[in-house]
């Protein structure tokens, strides 16, 4: 049953008319309701006319649908010159018979009302224009001007109702613009007549920074994004940024990308960052965050990739000069077209505009890696929640594009280093902390990896040196109960060395003494042995003499007895 029903439901679903305006078709899921009027309302300067005109121009250039623009406020010439800077060349489109511009001027002071009338004149003009170029799209901007020009509101209202009905019968997709009113969407309640689709544009100033927003209040018979979407007008027209609609579905890569510092690669599992991940470098002033970013981008360029450096504090020239002093020649990469700088003060425009310009840069330049230095400056132009939302959207976008991004964050003195100010650390895959260690009247930089998702990483602190030949990481001196850096480390190392030398000398002396003692003892032993030999000899000699003496004595007694013969 359900299977049978589905196709018919799809057939009955509202046909959509794509606007061609970037982002708008995404949040309307296909465009404006085809063959029906859409109300676009907003305060003065919110971009209603531009949206409407872009709808027509893109309809002509992208969808081969001719359009009629009926203006109640600006002449055709004014309109053409207003949008010429956006690359819309209206006179050419008019000449090609694709666009009809008609300026309707109703001047109250010139008009006297005498009896019954209707707005058939408007119908005739619009009908002639539509039929003349076989228009599929119509814009009435701003039809409310009629309320100022014509005194009889009752006639006007019934005629407007008839007009919108008539537009539907003509099967043209129309945009009707209306000024924002108090308590109503439009000043004269046009929303009563146009109920198929209502879009509200807003231009708000917060903290002295203006931000455009677009919201679809109503879209009968269709799903649509309901949020307020940031919108902006730039040299390519209007764009809406439906980034918050993105889900957490970005692809992930297991490719690794070098940090540009061999020892840091080693600290990150030996291979560096993950490609497409987001890296957060936080630290107090002067700890070398920019240098870390530079080392990374330099490495990317060196390997033939493209890199984008977004600086919110320093000019490109200044960064190039400063980084040259530690051995990174960024100018070379810039000239080779591998490195692009984007320097803008945060205050220059609102967060959305920043976001959009980053989007655009990323789309156009297609970098492999991108550094934003520092993002904390953004705090100055928006509320914490807004900044976080913006960065979330940016990170989502960059991850979707597979762009490895490095964000630096300045931690104020007295703040906890582990607590990043914008609370975005949870969005980051790798977090490096650089900090100053003040000892012995000097300051030394320390670097450590606070976290790095999905890879083995070192838990060691490293001393972080900025040398003529780039960034170097050194082991810190880890002694009993202390970690030493800088000259203290060097002094300790020298002391250690001296100690070791003294030990060696002492050991050699002791060895020599022992050898000597051994030799002398051996000599003494030899002398004693010689004495033992002599004593032995003496002993034998004396024993022989004694025996001989005994023999001689007995011989003498015998001779004596013989001599006496007496017995």
């Amino acid at each position, binding site marked *: 049953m359900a299977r049978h029903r589905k196709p018919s439901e799809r057939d009955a679903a509202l046909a959509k008319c794509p606007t061609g305006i970037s982002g708008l078709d995404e949040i309307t899921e296909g465009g404006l309701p085809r063959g029906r009027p859409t109300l676009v309302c907003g305060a003065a300067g919110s971009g209603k006319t531009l949206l409407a005109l872009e709808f027509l121009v893109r309809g002509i250039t992208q969808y081969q649908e001719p359009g009629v623009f009926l203006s109640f406020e600006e002449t055709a010439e004014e309109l053409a010159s207003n949008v010429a800077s956006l690359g819309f060349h209206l006179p050419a489109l008019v000449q090609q018979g694709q666009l009809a511009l008609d300026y309707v001027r109703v001047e109250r002071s010139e008009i006297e009302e*005498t*009896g*019954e*009338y209707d707005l058939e004149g408007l119908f005739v003009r619009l009908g002639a224009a539509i039929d003349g170029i076989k228009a599929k799209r119509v814009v009435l901007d701003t039809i409310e001007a009629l309320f100022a020009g014509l005194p009889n509101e009752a006639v006007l209202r019934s005629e407007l109702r008839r007009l919108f009905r008539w537009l539907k019968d003509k099967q043209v997709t129309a945009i009707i613009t209306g000024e924002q009113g108090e308590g109503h969407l439009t000043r004269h309640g046009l929303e009563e007549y146009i109920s198929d689709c209502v879009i509200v544009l807003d231009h708000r100033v917060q903290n002295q920074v203006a931000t455009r927003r677009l919201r679809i209040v109503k879209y009968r018979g269709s799903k649509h994004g309901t949020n307020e979407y940031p919108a902006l007008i730039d040299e390519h027209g209007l764009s809406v940024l439906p980034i918050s609609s993105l889900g957490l579905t970005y692809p992930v890569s297991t490719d690794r990308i070098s940090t540009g510092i061999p020892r840091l690669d080693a600290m990150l599992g030996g291979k560096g960052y993950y490609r497409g991940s987001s890296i957060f470098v936080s630290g107090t002033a002067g700890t070398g965050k920019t240098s870390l970013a530079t080392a990374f981008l330099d490495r990317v360029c060196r390997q033939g990739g493209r890199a984008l450096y977004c600086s919110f504090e320093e000019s490109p020239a200044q960064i190039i000069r400063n980084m040259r002093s530690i051995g990174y020649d960024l100018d070379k990469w810039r000239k080779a077209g591998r490195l692009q700088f984007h320097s803008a003060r945060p205050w220059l425009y609102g967060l959305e505009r920043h976001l959009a310009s980053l989007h655009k840069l990323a789309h156009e330049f297609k970098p492999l890696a991108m550094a934003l230095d520092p993002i904390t400056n953004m705090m100055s132009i928006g509320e914490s929640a807004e900044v976080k939302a913006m960065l979330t959207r940016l990170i989502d976008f960059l991850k979707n594009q597979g762009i490895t991004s490095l964000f630096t964050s300045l931690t104020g003195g007295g703040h906890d280093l582990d607590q990043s100010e914008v609370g975005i650390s949870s969005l980051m895959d790798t977090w490096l902390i650089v900090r100053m260690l003040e000892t012995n009247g000097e300051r030394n930089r320390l670097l450590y990896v606070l976290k790095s998702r999905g890879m083995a990483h070192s838990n060691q602190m490293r001393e972080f040196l900025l040398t003529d030949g780039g960034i170097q990481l050194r082991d810190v001196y880890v002694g009993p109960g202390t970690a030493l850096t800088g000259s203290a480390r060097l002094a300790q190392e020298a002391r250690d060395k001296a100690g070791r030398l003294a030990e060696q000398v002492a050991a050699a002396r002791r060895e020599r003494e022992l050898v000597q003692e051994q030799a002398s003892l051996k000599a003494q032993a030899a002398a004693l042995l010689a004495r033992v030999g002599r004593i032995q000899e003496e002993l034998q000699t004396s024993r022989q003499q004694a025996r001989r003496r005994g023999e001689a004595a007995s011989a003498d007694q015998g001779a004596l007895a013989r001599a006496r013969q007496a017995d």
Partner: protein
Amino acid sequence: MTTTKISPRPLKTAPAKARRTPTTWDLRLYVAGQTPRAIQAFANLTRICEEHLAGKYRIEVIDLLKSPQLAKGDQIVALPTLVRKLPEPVRKIIGDLSNTEKVLVGLDLRPRP
């Protein structure tokens, strides 16, 4: 051109009045088709002109159904619309011209109340 030119009577010269209104009254009535309202407006207009501008006016009836492009020139929105092209300044009077007082005021034939 499908406009109809109607000059019911030959123009008369009236030197004293001519100084005040040196040119002919050139009037255009815009309508869309032969609607009752259009016929009514034309009838009212000729009556008023005969009474107040006898002999020095010219009425041109423009049917926008036949020549819609003419609506642009005089900025026609409401119908019927009477446009006083001459004497200058241009005046526009909308409606079926049934309120004679207002038509006279609109044509500057009577001071504003």
